């Protein structure tokens, strides 16, 4: 039983962080209809930022979030002004390949600067500590904190989008950029802002993840695909959709755990021989494919 509860707990906690990762992607997509293949690389930048800040200042990695947020915001705006702006004029083919180029660029820049070996956070008030929440379920403190802070960040962005004037302007641009422009909302600035917020939220997620996940320059792709699956499920452009879809995807990543639960409850050796853990990411891709074919609108989305 503790296997099942452990997996559910892990899935939900991870899911909250993943929701934050996907949030940036859905905002960018909502506002300007471009898919950022370099999204995972932004996350990777966030992870390195968190790591470096912690190492340089000796702060606990949890406190590096503001730094990561600023770096992410600037990175997003910079990418927009310096590159994405020009991509928007071209055909979709070019946009896709352009953001791929950005992905390769960031990935190899990181490779050049940091080298290819894994780096993790080794010190901090939360590292190595765990909570035993009963029934044999162990929750590492870092994951719990990351999940909690993700929810806070998520709520902050949601408030920004819905309760502030700027947020409403963004939403307006997302719904109909032409009409918004007629109302005096500058599309260019809104686009840049979307990239800024999108970039900032995903780097914050990165700074949280680096507490329990190792970072190397190549890990961006996995998270890009995870973010796509979340956004597809939740609906391209929907902020609350991203949250619930994030939880679902977090649980999908725990499929090996659920499989183990069945294996040992029924004690069927053939189940133990199936290499489920090696396939743990595959289910995410399958989920994306199935969702897009069966319900492309996602759960909450308003964009097709």
């Amino acid at each position, binding site marked *: 039983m503790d*296997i099942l509860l452990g997996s559910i707990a892990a899935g939900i906690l991870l899911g909250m962080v993943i929701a934050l990762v996907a949030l940036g992607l859905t905002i960018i997509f909502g506002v300007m209809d471009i898919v950022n293949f370099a999204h995972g690389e932004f996350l990777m930048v966030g992870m390195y930022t968190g790591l470096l800040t912690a190492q340089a200042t000796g702060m606990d990695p949890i406190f590096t979030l503001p730094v990561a947020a600023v770096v992410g915001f600037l990175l997003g705006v910079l990418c927009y002004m310096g590159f994405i702006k020009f991509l928007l004029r071209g055909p979709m083919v070019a946009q896709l390949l352009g953001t791929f180029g950005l992905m390769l660029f960031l990935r190899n820049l990181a490779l050049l600067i940091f*080298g*290819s070996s894994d780096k993790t956070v080794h010190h901090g008030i939360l590292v*190595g500590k765990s909570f035993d929440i009963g029934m044999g379920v162990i929750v590492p403190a870092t994951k719990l904190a990351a999940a909690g802070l993700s929810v806070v960040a998520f709520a902050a962005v949601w408030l920004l989008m819905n309760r502030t004037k700027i947020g409403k302007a963004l939403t307006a641009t997302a719904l109909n950029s032409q009409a918004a422009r007629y109302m005096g909302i500058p599309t260019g600035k809104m686009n840049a802002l979307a990239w800024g917020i999108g970039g900032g939220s995903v780097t914050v997620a990165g700074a949280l993840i680096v507490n329990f996940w190792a970072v*190397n320059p190549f*890990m961006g792709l996995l998270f890009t695909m995870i973010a796509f699956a979340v956004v597809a499920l939740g609906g391209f452009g929907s902020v609350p959709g991203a949250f619930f879809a994030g939880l679902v995807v977090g649980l999908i990543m725990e499929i090996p755990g659920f499989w183990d639960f069945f294996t040992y409850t029924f004690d069927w050796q053939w189940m133990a021989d199936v290499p*489920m853990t090696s396939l743990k990411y595959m289910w995410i891709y399958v989920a994306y494919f199935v969702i897009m074919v069966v319900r492309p609108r996602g759960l909450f989305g308003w964009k097709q």
Partner: protein
Amino acid sequence: MKGMMRFGLVWVTLVAIFGLTVPAEVFAAEEIKIGVIYPLTGGAAAAGRELRAGAELAAEIANNVMADLPMTMAKNGGVKALGGAKITLIFKDHEGNPTVGADLAKKLILDDKVHGILGCYHSSVTKTVSAVCEQYGVPMINGSSTSPDLTQRGFKWFWRTTPHDKWFTKDLFELLKGLTEGKVKGVKAVQKKDIQNVASACENTEWGSLVTEMIKLFAEEYKYNLRKTLLYADKATDLSNEVRSLKAARPDVMLFASYTSDAILMIKTLKAEKIKAKIIWGQDAGFETPEFQKTVGDDIVGILTRTVFLPKVVEVKKLAGQVNAMYKAKTGNDFSGASARSFTGLQTWVHVLEKAGSTKPADIQAAANAIQIPGSELVVPWAGVKFSTTGDEIGQNVLGSGLIGQYQKDKDGKLVLEIVYPFDVATANMIYPFAAW
């Protein structure tokens, strides 16, 4: 006058003909080029640094005269049989990627025109590099790749000095058996049912996959209950699913085959999820590198690792101590299984070249198949180096052996590796069960 001139002309002509027809090698090739392919970047870069330093040290000793070392290759500067030709090592980085390794091997052979190859640590890379060498007929000596498969392919240009995983894994099960029979130093006989359940997690390339096969083989032979065998992606950045899967199997004994970064990640994740077993064992590689020891810190106490060399060996072998001191002066670390075997690999090259007396591939091949290096020459505690030439394993050193070490704290609180197997050379009581967290 005319006679003398004619005589001089004949003499000059003879010299010219002699110079043109005699192959260059006889005139003492000024250097012997050996291509060395190691993982100098990537997840095993820490090991790569050790490997490189080990080979460099061996070349240094071979190329210079060091009278106080009781080693044949230290007595001469360079390779005596080739007129004192010095060994030049050309290092290449395969980054842990078998395709890159194969490309580098091709370049070394075709463009750099090396006389032989040494490498590659990762069994998956050794596999492809040796295939290239076999294709071009260039001799390759392998010092530290332990997948049994490598010497079972019938290759004629591949020799391996290190013992392989079949023997090492058998050692482990012998240790477990000894535990139940009370043969282990400092531990009363343990009931078999207490260590009956076994689970393994290995990285999924050539090496880890075959270690898993060996574990399955011996678990059946020694009658242990192998509940789960996991293979994980060698470049994984998160192992929490794997670790929880291990936990679900509720093993008493956990076995790992990991390189450096995944070994560190595995142990940290185990600790974070508060998972442990009575026995935790690693199949060397990552479990032995200085980086692993430094990063894991005190949590490492009680972890077992297969190894081929540990600093305690110097208490047994004086030569090992001398060379270890040189190595420590060079790198700041003691010899480890990786560096010691890299050293031994290059040392074997020197001996083979001495025996061959030429750099022609066929001569090197013949020398390698006939060579016998006594154990007293080696820094590793083996009986010697002699390659098998018949049977289903060709090119495998039959005189090697392994050790099982356990991380413990000595009386000064420093972290050391104590020998727990073979039982008769154990240097300390074994810690059982595992209790570091």
